[in-house]
């Protein structure tokens, strides 16, 4: 039998060490995978158009933005066709917004799970954020089609894309951890999330290029981790070399967000089942 000496669990008032927790996360990696799969399946089953929604949403936003900002307001777009410019930004953005809100809500939505079974709680927001990656993948087919249409091809930097997707995931997860943990304690967060996402959209270079921000203020924009990620996404796909400094700043801010989020989440974790 596997009731080896190693299989002793000690439960006390304090959270276990980080090392023990990482081991727990590994042990429950299957649940993580099943929960993400569930989210995907349910989303694709419940709706008539299923996976098409993953394309319709950003495509529709692209059309609206192209008409209002591209055509009417003549927003500059770094020399690219505006629809392509804005869609390349909307891809990571749509994922980020979706992942942020679903991971922020994950504990409250799954409160039944939280109060009735044990698993490392971190899995809930992480699975919610992971599930959105499939939509990102699906939506990128439209981008590929548009690139063919406009005759614009990715540069050699495209090999960075998987890394960027990972960074994007961690960024959404970092912010999602904060929101999820806060949401358990303060239900007002539910109403803050959509508002926060809207504000965040306007402070990220999705609709506009970072270059229209005056030099003196650009560092403020760069502190937003999504800035570097979106810029890099565009450059990787539509040609050009990434702005390494900007990307490194984004990565640093992302990891600061992730580590602080995980810290806060862990702090509050032991009260989740009691107050949710």
């Amino acid at each position, binding site marked *: *039998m*596997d*009731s080896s000496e190693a*299989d*002793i*669990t*000690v*439960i*006390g*008032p*304090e*959270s276990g060490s980080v090392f023990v927790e990482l081991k727990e996360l590994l042990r*429950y990696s*299957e*649940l993580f995978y*099943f*929960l993400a799969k*569930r989210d995907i*399946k*349910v989303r694709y*089953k*419940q709706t008539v158009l299923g996976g098409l929604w993953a394309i319709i949403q950003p495509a529709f936003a692209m059309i609206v933005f192209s008409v209002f900002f591209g055509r009417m307001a003549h927003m500059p777009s770094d020399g690219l066709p505006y629809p392509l410019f804005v869609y390349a930004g909307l891809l990571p953005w749509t994922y980020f917004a979706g992942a942020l809100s679903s991971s922020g809500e994950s504990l409250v939505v799954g409160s*039944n*799970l*939280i*109060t*009735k*079974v*044990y*698993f490392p709680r971190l899995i809930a927001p992480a699975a919610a954020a992971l599930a959105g990656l499939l939509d990102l993948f699906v939506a990128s087919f439209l981008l590929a089609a548009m690139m063919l249409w406009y005759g614009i091809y990715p540069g050699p930097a495209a090999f960075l894309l998987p890394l960027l997707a990972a960074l994007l995931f961690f960024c959404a997860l970092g912010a999602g951890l904060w929101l999820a943990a806060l949401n*358990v*304690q*303060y*239900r*007002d*967060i539910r109403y803050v999330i959509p508002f926060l996402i809207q504000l965040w959209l306007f402070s990220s270079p999705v609709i506009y290029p970072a270059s229209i921000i005056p030099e003196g203020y650009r560092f403020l924009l760069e502190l937003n981790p999504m800035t570097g990620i979106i810029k890099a996404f565009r450059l990787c796909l539509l040609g050009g070399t990434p702005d390494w400094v900007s990307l490194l700043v984004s990565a640093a801010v992302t990891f600061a967000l992730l580590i602080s989020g995980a810290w*806060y989440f862990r*702090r*509050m974790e*032991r*009260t989740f*089942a*009691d*107050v*949710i």
Partner: protein
Amino acid sequence: MSTTAIKTEGISKRYRIGASEGYRTFRETLTDAVKAPFKRLAGLGHPVPENETVWALNDVSFEVKKGEVLGIIGRNGAGKSTLLKILSRITRPTRGRVELRGRVGSLLEVGTGFHPELTGHENIYLYGAVLGMKSWEISRKFKEIVEFSEIGRFMDTPVKRYSSGMYMRLAFSVAAHLEPEILLVDEVLAVGDAAFQKKCLGKVGAAAGEGRTVIFVSHNMGALETLCHRGILLEGGCKVFDGGIHEAVSKYLAKSLETDKSPLENCRRRGAGKMRAVGFRLETPGGLPLEAAKSGEPAAFCFDFENRSCGPEERVSVSFSVQNEREFGLFHYYSHFSGVYFTDMPAKSTVRCLLPSLDLAPGNYFVQVCTKVAGETDDWPQVLLPLNVMGADFYGTGDPNLSTWGPMLVKGEWSLRRST
């Protein structure tokens, strides 16, 4: 060799209650945060005042040996669920320490994590993962699980189209194939139809036979007595008894008789209140206190009355009704149905109604008492008095395991008339 599987040392759990019920409003915190920035946000705030908290568990220690089957008994609010939640790591104790040796599986609710949109097949895997099974384990047992559930034909139907019975069957079947070394089971086995329930209880029993350690919480005294060797009685979060299961059960039943008197004295009531019911207990036909009502055995329902302003001429009819846990009424019996009225009531009296055979299935029921004086409802306490009925040899066949398919039991004469 008997090794320790579970060891708890002085575990206590404090819950916050009162004004801010669980989660707090953001404003409350913001004002606090201004006063003590960051502290509140990080949960390091000032200690919560003692009167806003409740100790759901208080300094509970025990040890469970490998292969032992332990029953936890207590009234509602005694802390049973809290104890299981701590053992299954859903919540942390405020104080104390627990040591568990071996893989733990807990069933606090059946079907947690089931998703209505997914098919039976998909839900088996999902629920298995929720319960901590590995997917190779589920694949290996998949056929067995489907067979056990007896609803194999519906594996590709979304669970939302299942009847609640099918839903339960599927969930149970997955749960029953969980093979942890330590199994924690809450009330869950109390649902589902009787035959399937028995199958599940059998599975728990088998788990015990295979050397697994089981902790079982239930209000079903019959199931506890058949499955467990040892019982712990909890009261107000404290361990008040730890020993043989039979002794634990009778202690619990005796306690519930003692304490059930008081709810009648301070509760809301309707009616003029010339007469007042102040106590309820069960007696044997011989007038001794009846610790446990048993299916098919005689039971006398006794109600203590105080006469406040009822004249000697006024005709009093006393009634009691019994309902099940789902508040489904089973019967309501006024003494005047049998043509019995009481007159000339003394200051203190006891009205007794002897039922020659209590034809209720084993389970938990509630009794309500109501009194009419001169045809008017005079005293109707708004309180449900618990009545626990245990299984007994109802049919005289020597088998105390009774059907709990419905609340009533009947017995009669069976015969076969041949038509040729």
